[in-house]
């Protein structure tokens, strides 16, 4: 079993952390890997997206345990074809300074 909090951090921020996690997992001899998310307090979208991508292509059987509702929500978000939002009107004229 791998404790994600101990392996990475309680705050899963960086995309590269997910990449590094799976580089480690994929070279283990076990075919089934349990990832314990106990104590993980936050997760970025970037980490979650990279995690999900790597999980899909990993040759390991991955079991996640002790996911908080926030972590589950983020994984669901990145899996379920999210739509990009238009936060600023690109056709508006830029103000000259």
């Amino acid at each position, binding site marked *: 079993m791998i404790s994600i909090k101990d392996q990475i951090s309680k705050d899963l921020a960086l995309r590269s952390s997910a990449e590094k996690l799976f580089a480690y997992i994929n070279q283990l001899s076990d075919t089934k890997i349990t990832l314990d998310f106990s104590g993980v307090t936050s997760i970025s979208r*970037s980490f979650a997206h990279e995690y999900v991508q790597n999980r899909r292509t990993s040759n390991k059987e991955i079991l996640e345990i002790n996911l908080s509702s926030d972590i589950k929500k983020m994984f669901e978000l990145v899996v379920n074809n999210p739509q*990009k939002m238009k936060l600023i009107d690109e056709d*508006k004229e830029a103000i*000259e300074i």
Partner: protein
Amino acid sequence: MSDIPELLGEYLQSCIYAENFNETQKLDLQELGFIFPTTLLPLSDLIINNPDKYIPPSNYSVSNYISTIISGSGSNTYVPINQLPTDENDRNKALQAIFRLQGTDPNLFGGVSFFNLLISELIDNIFEHSECTTAKIAAQKYQQKGYADFCIFDNGITIPAKLKKHGYEFDNQGISIAKAVNGLSTKDKDRGFGLQTSVKLSVDGLKGEVSIISGQGAVHFQPNNSNMYNLGDRWKLNGTLISLRLPLVSEKKDWSQYAK
């Protein structure tokens, strides 16, 4: 410059001081009565690398503040200017220094999940996209003013140049930044959410403000208003500066309402 948002104005102030330095070979801050991280972060290298040309503010509090934020050790009211490490484990530790600004209030800035998500996406973007050699952060909580400023600077390729490198070029660089915020990515089509997530959480979620300055363009977001700016050559930035001004409001928020 009276119609320019404060955060953007603070960046322009740093340009004026840098311009004066280039002309006079002196970084003269004698008259400065107050300084925000958005002004100080772009000037910090000038101060550190030219100690004999730096004239500190006559106002002792301001002078002392600059010394502290350049070389202090940090607390739950400020994050000193420090370079983001290249080693990933150390990067995670640097993030903890920012997260520490929540202090003893777990609901400040929307709560742990909300705030950490907001900041993490901005930091991750630097390492994923900027091609920088240096990235720095600084932050300051202003209890009496009722807000906290967070600044992130990298000396990388700039958002407009990065997009141009991948075939996306627009009439002005403010539009490039706007496109990036709206989700245009140089990577896969299912990427490009990081910047907009941070902006949405900051502005819609926390009713804060965000200024993104990169190359010759800038965009500013505040509740119910956003604008693009063409900085031209005089105000251009060799890199990207993202400044947030977030109210000190203690209320737990659900990030998923803003990151659909």
